[in-house]
């Protein structure tokens, strides 16, 4: 339940190697070994790696890119064999997201990540999320996928100064947040 942002913090965990560098590495996150993201269900898309995220215990795919098509869970982590029969782990292996081609990588850094272009340090922060309130229901990610992201590391990454054309969806995210944790600058109170 950690929310990561500062005035110049990234929207998303940054990617290297396969795309342009979009944002600086979060200072809090210790550098860790690259996590290879592919599974036996699809052909190996090549070494797609994530830097800057703490190593997660499971080796399942990382959900990273909400703006694009929903990342399809390629494999579910194999849980230990249940004592009570086969049911307890019955992964819907190919569930999730329609229309994904089997050979595309689990996620891909995208230039459309931040459609307003790179955010500059000088942009003032408009959005803030109350760290103590946020319970990671991810409603904000559904409403404004370009500005909010609940990453696999259990943190909410968000754009503190979204471009103007994203503000309508950011406002909707703030309205619908179950914990009312999102505060916008110029918050009016009737």
């Amino acid at each position, binding site marked *: 339940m950690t929310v990561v942002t500062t005035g110049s913090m990234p929207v998303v965990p940054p990617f290297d190697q396969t795309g342009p560098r979009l944002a600086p590495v979060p200072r809090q996150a210790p550098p860790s070994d690259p996590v290879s993201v592919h599974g036996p269900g699809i052909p190996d898309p090549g070494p797609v790696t994530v830097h800057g995220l703490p190593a997660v215990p499971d080796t399942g795919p990382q959900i990273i890119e909400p703006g694009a098509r929903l990342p399809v869970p390629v494999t579910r982590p194999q849980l230990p064999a249940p004592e009570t029969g086969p049911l*307890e*782990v019955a992964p819907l292996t190919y569930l999730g997201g329609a229309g994904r081609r089997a050979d595309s990588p689990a996620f891909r850094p995208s230039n459309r990540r931040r459609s307003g272009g790179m955010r500059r340090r000088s942009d003032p922060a408009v959005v803030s999320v109350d760290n103590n309130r946020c319970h990671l229901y991810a409603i904000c990610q559904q409403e404004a996928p370009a500005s909010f992201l609940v990453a696999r590391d259990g943190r909410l990454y968000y754009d503190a100064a979204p471009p103007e054309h994203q503000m309508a969806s950011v406002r909707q995210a703030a309205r619908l947040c179950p914990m009312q944790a999102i505060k916008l600058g110029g918050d009016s109170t009737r």
Partner: protein
Amino acid sequence: MSRNRQSPDIARALARAGRARMEHRPRPRTVVIAGAGIAGLRAAERLRERGFDGAITFIGEEPHKPYNRTPLSKQLLARTGRLADLKLPVYRDLDATWRLGTRALGLDVERNRLLLARGEEVEYDGLVIATGVEARHLPGTPLWSDHVWSLRDMADGRGLGRRLADGARHIAVVGTGFIGCEIASSLRGRGLDVTLIGRGNALMSAAVGSQVGGLMTRLHRRNRVGMMLGANPVRWATADSRTDRPKAGVGVSIWLDDGSRVDADVAVVAIGALPAVRWLQGSGLDISDGVLTGPTTHAIHVDGGSPALVPSVVAAGDVARWPNLLFDRTPRRVEHWITASEHGQAAADALLVGPDAALAFTPIPRFWSEQFGVRLQGVGRPGLADTCRLAEGSPKELEFVAVYTRQGVVVGAVSANAGVRLLEYTDLIGWPLDSPRFASPPALGPARLAAV
């Protein structure tokens, strides 16, 4: 006035929509919003966002401007939140007239007038019905008593809080829906003894099915919530009654239909809600279980036999019963906070563009609840499902996603402590689960779940 008792045929009503009172439709200049809740608030905000510059008048029964009801059973009752948590953000200057503490008493659809007390009439060009719901009660419940409470609005929350601070130790909660379970969890968090009394055999089984409900029942048991399941209250006795008094030192006694009795200091009744539509009787609108509307949220007028859409009246929020075409054509009510917000916005849009141009309101219902630290979250209508399958995770650890299907088609999904994992199942709603693409696991059976 003869009302058509048969349920009106929506399809026929839609076919007539073009002919129904559409001859002359000027842009609305005055919009009246009946009900100052979240749906009404979001409707007003959306009207202003769309550039509506006419007058907006709220007719609200409570003396408060719209506030967030959801913390009443959670943070406020658990005393982890503050009263300021009830504030709702608004991102537009509403420039509205607030008639608070005012109850709408009637509606004249023909003359476009809302009737208030003392014969006052408020004329409108557009009306948003968003009066919400009222707490439901069983007959014979001594609601007047200081030992029996419901939890619907801020006044209830304050009164119950004061009563609990008065030294109540043991609380009986009647009702095992979301609200009842949240109340139980919040009160256990304060170290109070709680007994849950419910009709069903599992908690929240109407909303999330008996399997996930069974898991939540185990969670409550583990947290030492007393349970009297499969029982209905039949008789009450309260310490401040003149006729029916319990034993000395007991605030309220509840006799159940299985012969047992529950003694407590305070009882909280949370057995669901009924739409607040009594004021619409005789208006000609269909108000059996909420205001019936078409898919575009326009109200349906049934007086005189042939149902027709009313272009100047829309209904939104918990009070509205409408067909969500995402699932089927059966009109239903949805009592979720997120949906109420979206409903208000859609109703405002529909009011501005009229029934011909308005889009059908087809949201994916979303809801959440937190009990004993378990974040339960759902999408769609799990209550419609005939089968519940475990999609991933482990029920034993209460970290899982379950997918609900009706005749093989996904209608909903529920997750516990797996928030973001639920998102990808949201897109499956409306799709068959056993199309060849998907590997279909065996259904969660009762025997299997007992083993879990």
